[in-house]
């Protein structure tokens, strides 16, 4: 065992890369759930984003266009969910699961000719002298633009939810859709837009895996990260900044586990791997003391019966 082998600076810097896909997927889902919709199709939207982003990045040799395409792909797939749940009033749990099933198959079909390819590389942002500061430089100023975009989106979502009228409407729709409807808000339109936002975010998160974290395309490569993102939203008790915290914790636990193994510590990998989920449950129990954590209409179907 040699714990000195773990380089704390790189270890912490690694958090950002591991957490970014989670941050995107979870912040998108957070907005969706804030409007009272539970979309279990995150995994399907992520993997669709992963292939759309990869394919476009390879074809255009522009990683940024790839990310744009990933957002579009994720949003397009999520409109299917919006159509099913908002127009056809289908059950959200079943529709979300179906979306994941469909997304996994659809991405595999799209990706058949992209296996084994290398995507163009996205350069890290050049912060000039900031990047040369010891410790702080490599930890905070050595990443690609998407990492910072992820942080930006979290801040934006927080600000919109807290301060803007749009945020107020969003929350009103999620807390009590009948009351929101009575006040004249377009419940379905708000929800549909939120779902598409969630899809776009999940798509970018997926593309971060295929374009940067791995980077390559393989079928089913999101490997359950979408499900962790779902857990993360709950863990964060539907608050934007706690998503960040949770994503670093979840991502950090993975990094920690690998680092400990590398340092020769014989750890029971399975038990460490289940710990994020157990922690989430514990957090849930604590949260439920304050009853108001979850949006009031979460998962319920809305139909204006007037």
């Amino acid at each position, binding site marked *: 065992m040699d714990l000195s082998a773990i380089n704390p600076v790189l270890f912490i810097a690694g958090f950002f890369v591991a957490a970014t896909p989670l941050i995107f997927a979870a912040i998108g889902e957070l907005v969706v759930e804030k409007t009272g919709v539970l979309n279990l199709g995150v995994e399907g939207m992520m993997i669709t984003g992963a292939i759309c982003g990869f394919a476009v990045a390879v074809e255009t040799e522009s990683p940024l266009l790839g990310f744009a395409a990933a957002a579009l792909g994720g949003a397009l797939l999520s409109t299917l969910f919006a159509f099913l749940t908002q127009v056809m009033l289908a059950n959200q749990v079943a529709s979300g699961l179906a979306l994941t099933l469909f997304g996994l198959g659809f991405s595999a079909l799209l990706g058949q000719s992209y296996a084994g390819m290398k995507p163009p590389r996205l350069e890290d942002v050049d912060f000039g002298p900031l990047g040369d500061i010891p410790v702080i430089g490599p930890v905070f100023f050595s990443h690609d633009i998407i990492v910072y975009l992820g942080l930006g989106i979290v801040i934006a979502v927080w600000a919109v939810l807290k301060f803007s009228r749009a945020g107020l409407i969003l929350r009103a729709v999620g807390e009590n859709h009948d009351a929101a409807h009575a006040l004249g808000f377009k419940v379905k339109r708000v929800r549909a837009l939120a779902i598409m936002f969630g899809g776009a975010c999940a798509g970018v998160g997926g593309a971060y895996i295929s374009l940067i974290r791995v980077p390559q395309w393989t079928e089913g490569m999101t490997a359950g990260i979408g499900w962790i993102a779902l857990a993360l939203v709950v863990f964060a008790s539907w608050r934007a900044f706690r998503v960040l915290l949770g994503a670093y914790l979840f991502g950090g636990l993975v*990094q920690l586990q*690998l680092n400990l193994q590398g340092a020769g510590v014989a750890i029971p*990998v399975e038990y460490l791997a289940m710990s994020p989920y157990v922690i989430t449950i514990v957090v849930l129990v604590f949260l439920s003391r304050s009853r108001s954590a979850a949006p009031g209409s979460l998962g319920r179907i809305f139909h204006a019966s007037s």
Partner: protein
Amino acid sequence: MTFTKRAAAKLLLGTALAATMGTTAFADGHEKTKVGFVYVGSVNDGGWTTSHDKARLAMQEHFGDKVETVFVENVAEGPDSERVMTQMALDGADLIFTTSFGYMDPTNNVAAKFPDVKFEHATGYKRLHDNVSTYSARFYEGRAIQGHIAGKMTKSNIVGYIGSYPIPEVIRGINSAFIHARKVNPDVQFKIIWAYTWFDAAKEADAAKVLIEQGADVVLQHTDSTAPQAAAQEAGNVTTFGQASDMEQYAPYPRVSSIIDEWAPYYIARTQAVMDGTWEQIDTWDGIGAGMVGIGEITEAVPADVKAEAEAMKAAIADGSYHPFTGPLNKQDGTVFLAEGEVADDGALAGMNFYVEGLDAELPQ
């Protein structure tokens, strides 16, 4: 028609159905030899299943019109695989390759019901019926060559190793690589991370990055995706080796060589045997010599003398004059594994569940 009434009665469906079987299942007259493949992953996985599917295509090419091949991908181990195998046998397959360890019991179950269909199970050890053969490759031979190159190439004296599951096959590879790295570099040390998956690009990428961050400048992998290659390329000065397939898109550097699963010669030979009526049950465990383990081209990133040594070792292993597990070798706890000059027998290799002396790691329990 070799399908006797008695054999038919062994079918799961009893005698009433046996009549159907006798008249339909093999009534196509066998213009072509039909060969089925059951895959655990997708043919696009770029690793294990891709290597089998490449071999299928090579075999198809070799025989042309004389052979028809069919395959089903993403078949879960368990009852699904049993159903797919049965379906292939019913549809007139003469030979079925089942290419995952977890298909072991299903293969033997189905083989019992179709005594006239030949079954070939990869990486297993059960041959309960005359029509079941098993085949596997001595990947540890390739690992010895990797270990040699790794020991010579590393400057930090830290070699990273991504393992899938702590099972004998993988442990054998780690030992083989370590023994040969130590031989040429007494200061070398291995860092081992178990990914607990055979194929998960994101996890493998993370593991490779952590190994690199912890100072490894050579990363060996016993998982099948190219993600570690990509991570090494990103890092810049890290050496890797292709696994399962050549992964030539990462040559000449970071990928300096590879262990390739070469199933095609075996598939061609076994299909030929079915055509000739000479197919018999065998237990194949072939290595470099028989061409089942391929060593991908050693690139110019490896110094010429090291390359020459590696190629000499490859030749010695191929002609049988050198065995990667040759004594004196001790186990990690210091007890004797092999005495001076002694060569490990296949039984000891097959059940290997310990590290050799010098490895500074603990096997997960």
